[in-house]
């Protein structure tokens, strides 16, 4: 029996299935950083083109966009949501940069602490953003 057939015939538990792993907080921040990055490219940037086009076309178009923003709650909430995705990527990304340049040392405890601090700062900033944009 070769090694490969030995491995394949054993009914051993395989725990590298990504859907069965419980994520620590720092890993949660890392994967959501990636997801938010994908969302920015495929959602936030295309929508921001439309917004920027309307805002920069003419003065009346600018005023029209602003009145639509104030009238329809759905559009307002959509803009806030897209802004929050963007801010989330910036906040978690800044933590990654600090780790990349060894300003935050790469061990479990400082990784957990920086994750908590990043999330706390993001929530504060999100509340501020919602208060300003509403």
């Amino acid at each position, binding site marked *: 029996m070769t090694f490969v057939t030995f491995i394949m015939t054993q009914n051993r538990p395989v725990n590298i299935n990504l859907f069965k792993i419980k994520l620590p907080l720092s890993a949660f921040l890392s994967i959501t950083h990636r997801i938010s990055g994908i969302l920015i490219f495929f959602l936030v940037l295309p929508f921001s083109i439309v917004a920027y086009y309307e805002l920069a076309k003419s003065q009346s178009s600018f005023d029209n966009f602003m009145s639509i923003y104030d009238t329809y709650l759905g559009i307002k909430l959509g803009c806030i949501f897209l802004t929050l995705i963007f801010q989330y990527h910036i906040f978690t990304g800044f933590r990654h940069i600090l780790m990349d*340049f060894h300003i935050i040392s790469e061990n479990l405890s400082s990784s957990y602490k920086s994750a908590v601090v990043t999330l706390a700062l993001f929530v504060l900033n999100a509340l501020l953003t919602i208060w300003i944009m509403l």
Partner: protein
Amino acid sequence: MKSGKLYWYLQRFSALYFISFLVYLEYTFWTTGITFQFLTTNNLFKAALSIFILSACAHAFIGLWTVGTDYLTKRTLGFISTNLSVYADVLRKIYETVFFILGVLIATFYISIIWF
């Protein structure tokens, strides 16, 4: 410099540029306010936004390529289905083509709206 190292630094330093650009935007928002005149006549803003969009696309190409080579592989797709994992390389190429075309479109639209 090896190209991998160049991409790594490009992604990090573009990220630092995004943060400084946002600080500049935030400062303008609180001092003079974002008006139609500011968006269309302020050349510093228009240049900064153009650099922002171009480096955002470069940053996104590197990031999305990383995500693609991490998850659209035979091994990772094999978690979902072994039949699917056979097409991993093809799927990744399609994904890379799609985001490349979308990125070029985004940059083209933005630059033409900003300057023309």
